[in-house]
């Protein structure tokens, strides 16, 4: 059996809260300096600033602290402002659902995990330091909860291991048959070049069926590729947020994104070529 969850497993405990691996990805920092452990997300179990003074933890550490907007939101939340809570829920709920579904299969379970996460967020508010963004913190709790749940259900999702597997080997973005052979004139240039989509009406691009094809293409991706494209292109997270959240290197994050986008583009190209 693999260890159930190996996010950040490269980060040595108790040494420093910032570990940089050879590819430059931040793999070890957590709010409050608490490292992994099944319930590392439990806000009440976190020492407030366990590693204060270890390393400067400003924005340059790769995990931006809470923004001024978030600070205001935090103050309102701590004061019991229900509208502020609703704003936060509206901002993140659907994304949380999508993230939870990367770990657990079933939507009902995903919704339970989200409920648990919000309770943990509320309970942890008083101790939240604002050294990571509120969003990063919430999704970290969510990922830990979802992973715990997945392990209990016998389906663990070790993204960092999956990521290395899925980023390995050769996986051409476009089938080699679409290029001219190496010994031809204009070697490795298009034999069957992509057509412009410029003439396709916007209504077709936005049609329900096009959306459905896109969704299916994403669902068909291997899990780590699906996770990366979901967070990057559906949720609009930046590269650092994604590699930090999934515990994958910057290099693997980019390879996975490349492979995922290439397949989704190809699926869309096939679909749009149908008459």
């Amino acid at each position, binding site marked *: 059996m693999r260890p159930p969850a190996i996010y950040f497993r490269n980060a040595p405990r108790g040494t420093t809260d910032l570990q940089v691996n050879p590819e430059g990805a931040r793999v070890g920092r957590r709010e409050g300096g608490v490292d992994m452990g099944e319930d590392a997300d439990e806000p009440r179990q976190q020492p407030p600033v366990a590693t204060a003074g270890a390393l400067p933890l400003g924005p340059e550490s790769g995990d931006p602290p809470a923004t001024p907007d978030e600070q205001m939101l935090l103050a309102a939340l701590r004061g019991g402002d229900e509208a502020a809570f609703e704003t936060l829920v509206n901002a993140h709920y659907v994304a949380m659902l999508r993230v939870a579904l990367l770990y657990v299969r079933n939507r009902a379970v995903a919704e339970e995990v989200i409920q648990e996460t919000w309770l943990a967020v509320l309970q942890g508010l008083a101790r939240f330091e604002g050294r990571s963004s509120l969003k990063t913190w919430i999704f970290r709790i969510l990922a830990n909860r979802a992973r715990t749940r997945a392990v209990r259900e016998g389906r663990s999702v070790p993204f960092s291991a999956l990521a290395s597997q899925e980023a390995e080997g050769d996986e051409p973005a476009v089938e080699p048959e679409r290029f001219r052979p190496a010994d031809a004139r204009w070697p490795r240039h298009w034999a069957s070049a992509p057509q412009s989509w410029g003439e396709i009406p916007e209504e077709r691009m936005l049609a329900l069926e096009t959306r459905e094809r896109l*969704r299916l293409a994403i669902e068909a991706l291997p899990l780590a590729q699906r996770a990366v494209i979901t967070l990057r292109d559906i949720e609009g997270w930046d590269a650092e947020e994604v590699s930090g959240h999934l515990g994958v290197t910057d290099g693997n994050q980019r390879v996975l994104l490349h492979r995922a986008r290439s397949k989704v583009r190809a699926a869309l190209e096939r679909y749009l070529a149908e008459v």
Partner: protein
Amino acid sequence: MATVEEGLSCQELVELVTAYLEMTLPPREQVRFEAHLAICPGCTNYLAQMRETIRLTGMLSEETIPDDGKAKLLDAFRTWKHGHTGE
């Protein structure tokens, strides 16, 4: 030989598209990439298709929250507030 800049092939270019869009290509590679694009309609279409794919994927985020889930959360908030602020 090392000083001669070979042009990119289309097959090489498609593998650099993500790095190009992420702006992580080294300057020299970026120049080669753009030089190829300037003369290759196929790769220009390819890059445009990739951008369009990203745009359409981004539109999948438009989904609404199930009401019951949200209602439960607001209840949980009120309970928390009661215990927390004593209101």
